[in-house]
């Protein structure tokens, strides 16, 4: 099964760029990505630009409405994701708990829909 691990955290939480903690923090991400690739669980993963770069679009009566900012203002925002191939939810929980941001944020685990033809 494929599980989407959505990484949520407050942008000011955790190690910030330019601090001595940031290097080891990012190395943790590199190590996690390597581990997932080697174990064959890695499907895909990306980091997202900060929430200040977000744009939201919707259609109101057929008219495009574009707004600056995220869909909902929340303290914890989506900062990136891993799409993992895992046997069970327990396996997905175990992997997701190793994502470095789990220490100061949360990882939401969502199973991916498999479409029946």
């Amino acid at each position, binding site marked *: *099964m494929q*599980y989407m691990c959505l990484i949520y955290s407050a942008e000011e939480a955790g190690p910030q760029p330019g601090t001595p903690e940031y290097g080891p923090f990012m190395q943790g991400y590199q190590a996690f990505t390597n581990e997932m690739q080697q174990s064959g669980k890695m499907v895909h993963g990306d980091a997202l630009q900060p929430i200040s770069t977000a744009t939201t679009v919707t259609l109101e009566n057929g008219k495009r409405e574009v707004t600056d900012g995220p869909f909902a203002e929340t303290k914890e925002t989506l900062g990136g994701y891993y799409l993992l191939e*895992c*046997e*069970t*939810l*327990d396996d*997905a*929980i175990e992997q997701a708990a190793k994502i470095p941001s789990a220490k100061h944020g949360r990882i939401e*685990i969502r*199973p991916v829909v498999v479409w*029946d033809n």
Partner: protein
Amino acid sequence: MLPPFKLEQTIAQVVREDWGRILASLVSSYKDWQLAEDVLQDAVEQAMTSWKEDGLPDAPAAWLLTTARRKAIDKCRKNARFSELLPELTRHSLLIQHSEDVGMENIFPDKRLELIFACCHPAIDQKTSVALTLRTLGGLSTEEIANAFIDQTKTMAQRLARAKNKITKAGIPFEVPDEQNLEERLSAVLAVIYLIFNEGYSASYGESSTRADLTDEAIRLARIVQQLLPQQTEVSGLLALLLLHDSRRSGRQDKSSDFISLEFQNRSRWDKAKIREGTNLLKITLAKQKLGVYQLQAAISALHSEAASWEDTDWAQINALYELLYSMHPSAVVRVNHAMAHSYAQNPTSALAMLETLAEDTSMQRYQPFYTARADLQYRCGHLEAAQKDFIRAIDLSKNSVQQSYLRDRLALIEQQLSDLQGGSPNN
């Protein structure tokens, strides 16, 4: 042949006894909770008509399982999953045909542990785990569960359907957790069983202060898990605790079904067989020297059971056990009980001081036993007005009518004493 009413009773009994084991077996085969439940329900309905005509089969559980499996084949033929399930279904129909050669354990392996671990998975909300465990392992109907938790049957059915859907869609595994995770996962299972028991025992809603069906069901579930995991001391600890608590069931209510606190219970009404079973199990378990919170609570309960009267209770030892329990599980609830034990082992004044630190805890503001305990301690320290205030608050928070009437009696006594004091000294 059995008369119809007797037959219906027998069928109901077979279904209650074996539902969990049959369902576990079906879920294990098909990995589809809804399908498993539907075909078992259909098989039960068929049993009602078939058994009325042909009499009870020699092995009713095996009959139900076989019939349910046939119904699963019928259902799966109609959808695309048939090809996927075919190897599994063929294997089972072969096993059913040759059941004498392969032995019962092969056609009917016990998968109840896998079932309860899935029901009580931390990814499922605890209230839902309770309902799901009662439905799947306990064989209670959705309506019975809804009644027990004062919920609409429809709401409960939706809750159960959502949970089964999540288990399938999110890939919650149908397996006993590995060594590394067993302890943590087991504690979630035990918490659910204890919650079911407490719901029946203290009945926070409704008119009867004991809903025997839920306490019996919790004991039955604890027995199942204990038989399947006999080396896990906390499982045995929980079973012992439930037996010891439950031994006092008939002592907790008087003829008019009013709640009687431990202090005033008629100890001759306690169930001695349950006390013996609980105490013996606890002794064997404590000897294994893997202590845990359920064993400690069972030990406290056993000391109450051993005491010939309230006055004869070994409060010093109970106080020490609460001290230990608090160190393992520092909760406000344990602290309240610890303070009460301390008040008997030592004195109510220092016990009252133990509660003062808790008073700032916001979760205590709606916790009825805290106010009941503090009211009692205030009263015993001679602080009548403070006691009056706390009893009023406790009555306000209590949702149980028999408990409320007990608290009102105590409040009435204090108010009498207060008015006597005022009446006795008119010049003040």
